[in-house]
């Protein structure tokens, strides 16, 4: 039986008394690019964080490559997995943060090689070799021994993307990867992401870059107040939105 790479079903999440996600359904096929749009506070970051269990869902399920994330099902009960097990699941899911979160005391190369050494028990020389390859792929082969603070924002985010790829994840999640960057640095990061999309990496991208959504996305999902308002191919959602709220949001972002 074939299954989608990512399957989110009926996910609810609240913080205190505030319900942030009201039953989200989402699927992403292997090799597809899904762009999630939505106003600030609509729950986009929370949704991504639920996918790799940085946040626990209140109800509903997240499956990556058919595997239930964070829980083990027995009968009609879900038992939370041990931390060790969850960490192993996370190793298969890359995450790129809005503010990079690179480790400032490690060089670019060490940042990338850390997870393969720690989580996959690769030898340092093997991990460093692969890290160099990844740095080359994001166009930073000459920055291996630079510390994050010695890099520009765009370069830091490219290192962060390389770091997320170092575990050969099945799925890579991007949470507004370009919104902390100066406008002239956005392009270099989007170029790297377009490259990834072409090579068949399954990606879920939260972004306000409508241009990227238009050319790279297979599916665009519009989220508002914790609900999926509308989803479909970019031509439909971006150019002929059916809902007023989507239209209102797009008119704000596009101007």
């Amino acid at each position, binding site marked *: 039986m074939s299954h989608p790479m990512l399957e989110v079903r009926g996910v609810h999440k609240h913080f205190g008394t505030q319900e942030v996600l009201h039953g989200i359904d989402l699927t992403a096929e292997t090799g597809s690019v899904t762009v999630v749009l939505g106003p600030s506070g609509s729950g986009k970051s929370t949704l991504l964080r639920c996918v*790799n269990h*940085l946040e626990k869902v209140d109800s509903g399920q997240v499956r990556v490559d058919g595997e239930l994330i964070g829980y083990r099902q027995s009968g009609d009960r879900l038992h939370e997995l041990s*931390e*060790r097990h969850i*960490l*192993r*699941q*996370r*190793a*298969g*899911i890359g*995450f790129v*943060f809005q*503010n990079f*979160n*690179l*480790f*400032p*005391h*490690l*060089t670019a190369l060490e940042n990338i090689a*850390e*997870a393969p050494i*720690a*989580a996959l028990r690769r030898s340092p020389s093997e991990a460093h070799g692969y890290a160099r390859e990844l740095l080359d792929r994001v166009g930073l082969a000459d920055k291996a021994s630079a*510390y*994050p*603070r*010695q890099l520009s924002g765009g370069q830091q985010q490219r290192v962060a993307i390389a*770091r*997320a790829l170092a*575990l050969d994840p099945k799925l890579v999640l991007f949470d507004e990867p370009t919104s902390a960057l100066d406008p002239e640095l956005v392009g270099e990061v989007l170029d790297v992401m377009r490259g990834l999309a072409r090579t068949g990496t399954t990606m879920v991208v939260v972004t306000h870059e409508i241009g990227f959504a238009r050319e790279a996305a297979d599916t665009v999902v519009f989220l508002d107040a914790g609900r999926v308002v509308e989803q479909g191919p970019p031509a439909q959602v971006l150019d002929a939105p059916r809902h007023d709220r989507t239209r209102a949001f797009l008119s704000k972002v596009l101007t």
Partner: protein
Amino acid sequence: MTLLSSSRPRTADRAPQVVAARHPWRWVATAVVLVLLAQLAHGLVTNPGWDWPTFAGYFFEKSVLNALLVTLELTVAGAVLGFLGGIVLAAMRLSPNPVLHAVSWTYTWVFRSVPLIVQLLFWANLGYLYDTLQFGVPFGPGFAEVETLHLVSSFGAALLGLALHEAAYAGEIVRAGIISVDQGQREAAAALGIPRGRQFRRILLPQAMRAILPAAANELVNLLKGTSVVYVLAIGELFYQVQVVYGRSGRVVPLLMVATVWYVVLTAVLSILQYYVERRFARGALRTLPPTPWQRLRAAVTK
């Protein structure tokens, strides 16, 4: 046009020379400070009360050096045990387990409240409270019994007191370091599937060290001098020993100077060590490391 072209070339091929700003008040301040220092040095040399010959006679005297060794032993052992305890206390305090949290909090509260000197006297008098210590099942039968007097020598009591006292402070220093690291760091490590222990060792602790080191060095210097308090247990550390000597000879001031100068020398060594260790942990935190004093000196000489 002609006017411009005739006057331009001269200014263009010679850039204006930079003249540094002058600071006349700096010279005045320097002169005042130098005069005061000269006066101080003059007093130190000419006042016979300092009795420098006695100072020189005792500075490297064998009993003083042995006492210095005891001071160093207490400092090093107290610091190592104290900081190990401090790491455990900090981990407990930060853990989600409310019992561990409360125990750590209470420990810190109690051991920061009791003056070190009082605590030391308590430990030295442990035998008065409990004649024997029993090892075995809690509240159940015991396997082994030792007399408290044998278990806790006065050196042991001193070390125990120093380490327990130190742990309370070290715990707070370590905790301060850990909570100063951005939460995103732990999140990024967790998202990469890095195991808990390694997250702490490899990601959190090295960054926390930046905040821990200056405070820890401060605490170490405090401890070094704090060892002088154990003289109440009649342990032959530096301060106790000079007291013994001036008790016999009556030369109080030169012998206090012996102890003082040794404390100053040891603190200087610690401070230099601190400088280089901090530099080591500053990698990545600063865009470029400033040159060491040694490098600066060499640059100035070779220029």
